[in-house]
């Protein structure tokens, strides 16, 4: 078909203005593509909440105070909000209390935290290299970063091809022997989101952004990866558990043989459905919860939109209640391990086994909890992860009790009995 078209009829060319490679300013690209640009700008002002997601910046800690306990000792216990649209990325990363801006503090936040927040990055990565970028401090980088997420994070200027712009994604794919340049267009409609919507960690003192995918992107492969390099994000207070924090593993969860992924559906199919301007259709760049526009997001594939939205509800409710049971089990385990760790006579080997199970169970839970679809991206996989996580958490508690030979540590339902419940720091 394309062969039959006179070149000048094609929408990508001619372009009104020439956009230079990695142009950070999306409004310039927007002159060529007003539809994409105007929908993109809508991500700024969305503020509708859905049952479990949506674009309102509510506090996850206030909504479920169990998480204050689970993240104790780590910045996420201070401030952890629902994410919003792409245009808010800079405002939000600069506002979060998770940043440590104390100059000279060994834990001072690096520029790495800007990695997924700005269309200035592709040009900066080219200039400074990944290492140069990541070893700078956050405030040091701030003046160079003026644009939120934008066209340059996903597109190649000129051709408008979808590309991998984050060098860490490029490296992670390489570690698995993959070359994104061989991917099909439909694959890129998912992979482009993996520039950011993935689990990551920081390597070394330079805080190099890295995706833990060398063994694969399944939960057990990622845990193996971290265990092999003895990585930890923090030590849990009182238990001494070397903890792992999970972040937005949408890509890993979705591509783990979910029903939609196996059916060939891409992230962009649901989150960037085609919409119309007159007769012509284009990809909506107003990326948000598909539950806010299910007619467009689901309706072309599923005639009965009420049915599918009902299913999302059903699935999310089931995942939500199961996730809370897992949290209760984790809190019981943590309480027991703290008591055991406080006892100098505790059996070190049993206690250590308890910690290992706590580490594993909590990372598995977090992999589900930090994932933003409340189970919908891959319901069965997610429920299996929660089942295993609860099982490990309970076993961690049992080992803690064994380590000090004290069945009093087997108390359950601790969170329920807490009065008052913890509140996020003001």
């Amino acid at each position, binding site marked *: *078909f*394309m062969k039959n078209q006179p070149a000048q*009829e*094609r*929408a*990508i060319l001619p372009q009104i203005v020439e956009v230079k490679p990695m142009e950070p300013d999306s409004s310039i690209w927007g002159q060529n593509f007003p539809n994409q640009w105007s929908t993109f700008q809508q991500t700024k002002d969305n503020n509708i909440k859905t049952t479990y997601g949506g674009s309102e910046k509510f506090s996850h800690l206030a909504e479920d105070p169990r998480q204050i306990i689970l993240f104790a000792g780590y910045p996420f216990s201070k401030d952890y909000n629902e994410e919003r649209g792409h245009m808010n990325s800079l405002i939000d990363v600069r506002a979060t209390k998770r940043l440590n801006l104390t100059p000279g503090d060994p834990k001072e936040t690096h520029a790495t935290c800007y990695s997924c927040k700005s269309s200035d990055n592709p040009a900066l990565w080219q200039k400074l290299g990944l290492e140069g970028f990541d070893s700078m401090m956050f405030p040091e980088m701030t003046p160079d970063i003026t644009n939120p997420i934008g066209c340059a994070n996903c597109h190649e200027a000129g*051709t*408008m*091809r*979808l590309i991998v712009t984050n060098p860490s994604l490029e490296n992670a794919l390489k570690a698995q022997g993959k070359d994104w340049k061989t991917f*099909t*267009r*439909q694959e*890129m409609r998912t992979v482009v989101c993996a520039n950011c919507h993935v689990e990551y960690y920081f390597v070394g003192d330079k805080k190099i952004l890295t995706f833990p995918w060398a063994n694969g992107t399944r939960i057990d492969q990622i845990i193996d990866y971290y265990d092999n390099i003895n990585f930890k994000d923090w030590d849990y207070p009182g238990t001494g558990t070397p903890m792992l924090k999970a972040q937005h593993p949408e890509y890993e969860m979705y591509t783990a043989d979910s029903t939609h992924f196996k059916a*060939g559906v891409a992230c962009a*199919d649901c989150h960037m459905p*085609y919409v*119309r301007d007159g*007769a*012509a*259709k*284009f*990809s909506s760049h107003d990326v948000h919860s598909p539950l806010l526009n299910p007619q467009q997001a689901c309706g*072309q*594939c*599923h*005639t*009965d939109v009420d049915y599918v939205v009902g299913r999302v509800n059903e699935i999310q409710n089931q995942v939500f209640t199961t996730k809370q049971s897992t949290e209760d089990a984790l809190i019981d385990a943590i309480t027991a391990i703290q008591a055991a760790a406080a006892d100098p006579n505790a059996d070190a080997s049993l206690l250590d086994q308890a910690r290992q199970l706590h580490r594993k169970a909590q990372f598995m839970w977090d992999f589900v909890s930090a994932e933003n679809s409340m189970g919908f991206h891959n319901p069965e996989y997610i429920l299996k992860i929660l089942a295993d996580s609860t099982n490990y958490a309970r076993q961690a508690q049992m080992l803690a009790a064994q380590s000090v030979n004290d069945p009093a540590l087997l108390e359950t339902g601790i969170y329920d009995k807490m009065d008052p419940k913890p509140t996020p720091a003001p």
Partner: protein
Amino acid sequence: MTRLPIFIAIAATLIALGMFAYVTDAPAYAGTDSATCNNCHVMDAQYENWYHGGHRNVTECVDCHLPHDNIVSYYIAKGRTGMHDVYMFSMGKTPELIRAKEDTKQIIQGNCVRCHQSTVENIMLGPQPFDRYCWECHRAAAHGQRGISIVPYQDSSLYPTK
């Protein structure tokens, strides 16, 4: 004189063919009426769903299922797939599950684009080919939602329920 038997044979053959054509309404197969396709009840489901779908007002089966770039390829495809269908049907080789073949799908895709070109121009363009069939998303556009009957009632004078 010696040609008469041949003439008679030819005439008889023509008459026989003519009768055959008249009785069986075979020339209909050269036409475009969708009901013709449905002569083979094996395609009832496709017919019924097309009949009740949005495209009935604007399409016949052949608008989607035969190429329309030029008259030659139209009739070649028509002859080829038509003979295939008739052969499979007549020999009782109708598969349990009739499925569009890969080359059929390409013909169909060409036709979707033929009619909807201006709509899909934006999305078809780009340095990478558009590598999906339209009906991966528009799953109900051609033949309705599969498996779910769109006629929830039955004709009770013909099929009494008590």
